[in-house]
């Protein structure tokens, strides 16, 4: 069953995080809404095990070939012939490189245009729809052979975002802290501001306190914090506000007492009388 929805509810960065964390394989379609004031956009992103393997604005598997022809790297007739010869289940980019017709650098450039530049532009959509369908054909003719984690486009996409209004409700609260999810240094390319905030992902300070420490506007830190969370580098951890609202409640992890076994046994019996005979329970 496809996963679908609207970007106003579940943002593109969350969709990509979901796809990566869920190791999703399939076709993600992003599309602006029909009545939008923005220019209509529809883009197709193919994923394999949570990694982006190809993208295009068409589904006839001619996108990569068109890019190569437009750059005059291979003549059209020759490329069409090569496509016919390309072994089954082999990315076109890998085949062309193996034939010494395209270099690794050219492949990287194509991938950058196909994936990074196009998907980053999608972050500017104020609203749109998304659909992630599994059980689709692998787009071997659109594949350069390069792939990246889905969230690797998130930071570049959000860094250039000018209008954050659509994401306002998603930003970490100023009274929350950040807890890093990656042990040790990260391999993700962070810019200077992101790296600065990354140093504070120990869950000890609120975003408001971090902003004060870094002498930066709170809103700016909230935005960068959001970037780190959807890139999978940190999680938002709320702090509890004290009643006076001037300080945070110092917390330790609480280990609660457990009700007696007699109580639990009695309660189970009581509830069983009211419970449904069948229910869906997964863990």
């Amino acid at each position, binding site marked *: *069953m496809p*996963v*679908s*929805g609207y970007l*106003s*509810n*579940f943002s593109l960065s*969350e969709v990509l995080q*979901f796809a990566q*964390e*869920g*190791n999703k394989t399939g076709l993600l379609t992003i599309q602006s809404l029909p009545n939008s004031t923005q220019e209509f956009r529809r883009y197709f992103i193919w994923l394999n095990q949570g990694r982006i393997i190809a993208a295009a604005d068409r589904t006839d598997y001619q996108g990569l070939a068109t890019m190569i022809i437009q750059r005059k790297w291979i003549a059209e007739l020759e490329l069409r012939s090569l496509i016919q010869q390309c072994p089954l289940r082999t990315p076109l980019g890998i085949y062309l490189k193996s034939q010494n017709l395209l270099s690794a650098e050219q492949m990287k450039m194509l991938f950058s245009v196909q994936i990074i530049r196009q998907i980053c532009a999608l972050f500017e959509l104020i609203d749109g729809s998304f659909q992630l369908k599994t059980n689709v054909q692998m787009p071997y003719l659109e594949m350069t052979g390069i792939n990246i984690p889905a969230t690797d486009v998130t930071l570049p996409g959000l860094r250039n975002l000018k209008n954050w209004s659509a994401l306002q*409700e*998603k930003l*970490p*609260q100023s*009274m*929350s802290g950040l*807890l890093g999810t990656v042990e040790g240094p990260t391999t993700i390319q962070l810019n200077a501001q992101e790296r600065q905030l990354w140093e504070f992902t120990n*869950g000890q300070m609120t975003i408001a306190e971090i902003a004060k420490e870094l002498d930066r506007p709170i809103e700016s830190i909230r935005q960068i914090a959001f970037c780190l969370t959807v890139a999978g580098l940190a*999680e*938002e*951890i*709320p*702090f*509890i*506000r*004290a*009643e006076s*609202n001037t300080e945070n*409640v110092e*917390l330790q*992890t*609480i*280990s*609660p*007492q*457990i*009700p*007696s076994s007699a*109580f*639990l046994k*009695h*309660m*189970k019996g*009581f*509830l*069983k009388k*009211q*419970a*449904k005979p069948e*229910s*869906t*329970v*997964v*863990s």
Partner: protein
Amino acid sequence: MVFSFAYGSVGWEFMEVMRLVVTGPVGAGKSTFIRSISEIDVVDTDRDATDETSQLKKKTTVAMDFGRVNMGEDMALHLYGTPGQSRFDFMWDVLIRKAHAYILLVPANRPGEFRNARVISNFMRQRTKAPMVIGFTHLDCPGAWTMENMAIALGYGSPLIKRPAMVEVNPTESMSVATAIMALIEHL
């Protein structure tokens, strides 16, 4: 064990109370969940909802819902429902210290609330060792996500992260609510 003292017709009596906190984002069905099983009229603190919440429903809990289930003269289950709007104020401090277990309700048809639910879940994982069950509601509504996909959206996609038990819940049905609470008890 937690004991409360109640003065009854035979003098001072021991009463054992289990405290269950029902939490989750706006519109998950927390108040309804408590209402479905409580033997007393739920003490609710509904107020007129404002802003975005009002587009979903007219009223929303701003302090805490309370319900009770008596299981005999000396045993009771107390249910506390947290406010839907995420204000982690001093009340959470009280709940964390007193609660024996939690159920986090998540509406399957409102992906816009998954991030809120994820933040609540993060909070629980960090601040308390009390067992938690996730109850997915509104699974029969249009646009509802599957339980597996919601688990991923809540941050439980990696096999390295231990998943809590996850159940399907219809908060309007007492039988379904009872089943969810039973799933929680299994983990105590």
